[in-house]
């Protein structure tokens, strides 16, 4: 297996870079969208709330694989053709946004009611109260679930292989089919995914510990 690993290393390295790129970009975009969806849901404005609820229901009620296939293979029929990587990023972002919006929402709802009132009592607008008082606390409350979602997303990036994005899983498939050493290749990438997840969860624990100490 070692010889195979050494020979595959350059391709694996490229795959790792693409995997991490997909994961981080989709996470950043998805978090931004998720925050907007959470705010829409909490806005108390009926059409916005309805939109947010529908969004959640659709994206959490359908497999991410189907969402990716729909965007890459389905949209061209409507004249919208996207490259594999943008398709994957859009699908992963929209998917993770549905989870992130729930994480943000429960974080925001987890902040004591008195905090909002104290913010209002010194004359803040709703937006100032959210940005300066509520959100920093909500983020801390939601850090564990947000971290878990990031780790899950890193693994979900393997779905991009079905739309020909050459990320880690696709690399393994290619080398496997060229050498007929599928077993070794998939063991190798499983180990790599495991390594990425482990590093991330150590980072998550450190972050949580530091946040607990901050105040």
């Amino acid at each position, binding site marked *: 297996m070692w010889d195979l690993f050494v020979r595959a290393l350059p391709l694996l390295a490229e795959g790792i870079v693409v995997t991490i790129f997909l994961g981080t970009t989709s996470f950043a975009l998805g978090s931004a969208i998720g925050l907007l969806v959470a705010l829409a849901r909490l806005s108390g404005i009926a059409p916005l709330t309805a939109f947010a609820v529908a969004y959640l229901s659709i994206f959490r009620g359908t497999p991410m694989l189907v969402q990716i296939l729909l965007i890459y293979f389905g949209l061209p029929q409507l004249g919208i053709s996207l490259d594999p990587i943008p398709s994957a990023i859009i699908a992963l972002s929209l998917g993770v946004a549905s989870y992130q919006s729930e994480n943000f929402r429960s974080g925001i709802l987890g902040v004591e009611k*008195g905090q909002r*009132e*104290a913010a209002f*009592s*010194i*004359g*803040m607008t709703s937006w100032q109260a959210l940005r300066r*008082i509520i959100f920093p606390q909500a983020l801390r409350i939601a850090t564990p679930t947000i971290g878990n979602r990031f780790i899950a997303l890193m693994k979900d990036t393997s779905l991009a292989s079905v739309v020909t994005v050459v990320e880690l899983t696709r690399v393994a498939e290619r080398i496997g089919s060229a050498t007929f050493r599928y077993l070794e290749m998939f063991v190798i990438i499983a180990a790599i995914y495991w390594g990425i997840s482990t590093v991330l969860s150590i980072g998550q624990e450190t972050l949580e510990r530091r946040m607990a100490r*901050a*105040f």
Partner: protein
Amino acid sequence: MTEEKPQIRVRAVRKRFGRLEVLRGIDLDVKRGEVVVVMGVSGSGKTTLIRCLNFLEEPDEGHVEVCGREVACGAGRSRERSSQIRHIRTHVGMVFQSFNLFPHMTALGNVTEGLVTVKKMPKREAIVLGERMLARVGLAEKRDEYPSRLSGGQKQRVAIARAIAMQPDVVLFDEPTSALDPELHEEVLNVMRGLAADGMTMVVVTHEVAFAREVADRVVFMDEGTIVEEAAPAEFFARARHPRARSFLRLMQHSDPEGGAAAERDGQSLALGGNH
């Protein structure tokens, strides 16, 4: 010379939560520099009343005029009205029963937050003023501590500093000592005495009899959403007329048969009065 307008003018204010009518026609004037203590049994509407004064609670009916500005009650939310309400809030400080300090900010951060974010004061200037406010409540050396590292009494004093840093015309207090262990009451009450001595207009919901006797210009007694008695403290504690007020005072005297904190406190407070 014309009579100065009251800082707070409340007329016929009503407020209901669902089917429960919590305020049933409140009239109240608070003049500049006056200290008004509000008493009443649990559920009589004291908290709701003072929350109506800075529109944390929206009165359903009536008029509330603060610092010469009237905001229409029960008028829904318009952009203009919201900004009117925010304007009033910058002139009315509030101190909560449970402090409600911002846990992610230091003591100084709590005090300067409104100055920087709401008043758009330059940061340096805010820090100078913030430090002065912390010194005023005796906590200059705690400027960099987070609330979790402060005692309850210190938290409440920071909360007072946060309220007065905005340089309000009126400060509202909702049972500022009742979440504190009895030995911590005095440090908070002393800060409040200092404010009163400096001429701050204050509306204080509290059952601290000694404080009311010594500092209040007037005691207002609420029962079931109305003000049933209003008198100078000496008068009120000696000769309350309304039966509910009398039984309330009797209850306070004999409160807490387990001999807990409240009894100790009331015993001490009432002893100072010498009228019982």
